[in-house]
């Protein structure tokens, strides 16, 4: 490799950097839009051209978490003075927080939906990755009759678009009483992710030399002990990558969540657009909900980024 680069090479490099920057900006623009709208006062949310410089405020988040009603008249100074700081932000927006007869704040549906999303996504990810890891290990290490056919069958569950099975699933769920339950969604998402998890994990398992376990077997360990002590730590990268993909799929799922749930087990994706609802939509609140919704995936992905990078190129890298 020559240390000296020609001027054409250098300008080409610069061009590439500019290109990457442009593409990055295009990809990040909607995210910036959501994030900035989530911190805007309501009157700036829909201006044309969009306001770029503004005083950020957190009133959208206060509104996101509370039930509110329109003010007919401005609040009295006593009311205003008695209100905590966050309630004043609501007053400033021309609304008041709905309280019960005993003065308790009425929460909006969002925190619950967010929790539902977390419960469903995390549980289904753990299940799908866990079962997928075991299944992949079996396929990878043992001679199984019709292995190829079975693997293809597992994959084939992904070949139908989910919407095709939505109505039969809905009817079946109604009969067995899984409608609008956490377990209903968890089972559904686990089933979706399982095939993906099995295939991805099989690739990783195949890469772990079986000599490691055999050495452990000869040393007096059972197959199970060898699996947990030796194989699992080696498969960590694959497990992390698979978990990220499964989590994203479960977290973002919209269609089934919309059809199968409405109150108790409803997740955030169908809830957020339902808030556009009647009257004049408050885009800042919707943006705030969306912004919070983006965070778990972003954090999860960020934490596992090193594994993910290796996971994405799995099979291409030999140790």
């Amino acid at each position, binding site marked *: 490799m020559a240390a000296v680069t020609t001027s054409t090479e250098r300008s080409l490099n610069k061009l590439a950097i500019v290109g990457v920057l442009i593409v990055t900006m295009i990809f990040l623009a909607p995210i910036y839009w959501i994030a900035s709208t989530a911190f805007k006062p309501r009157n700036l949310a829909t201006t044309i051209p969009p306001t770029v410089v503004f005083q950020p405020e957190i009133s959208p988040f206060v509104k996101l978490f509370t039930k509110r009603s329109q003010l007919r008249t401005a609040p009295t100074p006593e009311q205003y003075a008695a209100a905590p700081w966050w309630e004043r932000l609501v007053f400033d927006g021309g609304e008041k927080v709905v309280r019960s007869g005993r003065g308790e704040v009425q929460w909006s549906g969002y925190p619950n939906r967010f929790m539902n999303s977390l419960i469903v996504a995390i549980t289904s990810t753990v299940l799908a990755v866990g079962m997928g890891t075991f299944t992949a290990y079996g396929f990878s290490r043992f001679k199984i009759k019709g292995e190829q056919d079975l693997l293809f069958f597992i994959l084939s569950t992904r070949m139908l678009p989910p919407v095709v099975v939505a109505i039969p699933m809905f009817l079946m769920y109604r009969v067995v009483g899984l409608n609008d339950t956490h377990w209903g969604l968890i089972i559904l998402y686990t089933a979706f992710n399982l095939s993906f998890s099995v295939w991805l994990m099989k690739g990783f398992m195949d890469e772990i030399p079986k000599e490691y376990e055999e050495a452990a077997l000869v040393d*007096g360990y059972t197959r199970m002990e060898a699996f947990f002590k030796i194989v699992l730590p080696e498969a960590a990268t694959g497990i992390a990558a698979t978990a990220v993909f499964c989590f994203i799929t479960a977290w973002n799922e919209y269609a089934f969540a919309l059809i199968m749930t409405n109150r108790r087990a409803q997740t955030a994706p169908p809830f957020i657009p339902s808030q556009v609802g009647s009257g004049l939509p408050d885009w800042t609140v919707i943006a705030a909900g969306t912004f919070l919704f983006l965070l778990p995936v972003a954090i999860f992905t960020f934490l596992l980024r090193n594994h993910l990078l290796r996971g994405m190129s799995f099979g291409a890298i030999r140790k």
Partner: protein
Amino acid sequence: MAHIQLKNISKTFGNHTALTGLDLDIADGEFFVLLGETGAGKTTTLRMIAGLEKPTEGQVFIDGVDVANWGAAERDVALVLQQYSLYPRYTVRENLEFPLKPKIRRLPDAEIKDRVDRAARTLRIEHLLDRKTDRLSGGEMQRVSIGRAIVRKPRVFLMDEPLSALDAKLREALRTELKNLQMQLGATFLFVTHDQIEAMSMGDKVGVLNHGRIVQTGTPHEIYNNPRDTYVASFVGSPPMNLIDGKLVDGRAVMAPLNFELPFAGGAKTGAAADGRPLVFGIRPEDVYLETGAPVEARIHDVENHGVEKILTLRVGDAMLRATVPARTDVEIEQAVRFAWNPDKVVLFDKGSGINLRHAS
């Protein structure tokens, strides 16, 4: 320590036959080398003794007990592989402790420490104990692998080409070390290799495996000087034994297509039965010598200088013949020379079956 016996073992993988009718007897405390080319079935044999593979047919005995239903864990054998037997996430010490910690034979901590330290001392890896195994050189890794085997005092040591991945110098050093270790422990070793030099230099006994069958078992001396058939003759030895087609006529060796004759001393041993029959004459390169006035003329085709000796390729008609001569022998390519062989060292093989006539009778 243990006595290993394989009786009539066959193993097939789908359509592929790995081993057929294999019999093997490894005495207690013996250093047994299983020698064969890649794909001959050496590793399969080893894995079957370790309990990682089940024979399709036949029985494995350890100390006279049929171990068909014993898992790998119960057989109490140690396995050293060419690579991948160390856990990359562990330090050397953790790797050495690992075999001492399974539930079925967990040792007290003091005993573990004691054994690890002793093994480390024996293999001179004490300074590496706290290092992660991915920071070791090939030779150090293989030492640790052997360490993993010796901490446990297993009944048998199984080694699957443990030296093949190392460079020549290290291989030589570890070869001696391993042999010393075996004598020091008095343990039964089964050592698998495709390297005939390893087999010759380390083995008390050598079994030559070809296409899933044991062709010959014997001391290195027997294998080298009295190969059972032309396969063993050409596989063992570097350069291999010269094999020349010919026949015996009135006690003289006549090379049939090439039309040259050499004196032959073994006529009495092989009997008159061999007379006139198509044969293959086998002669080791070191038993071929150049001499003015020797019976046959040849041309020097090639000269390989090995320091202490030279390996000459002689051309007689279309046939090539190797001769190992002292390094001081001064020859040039295409030079005409005369050669003879040591008539006492000639081995006769049947042309059709390739079997050594001495073994056949």
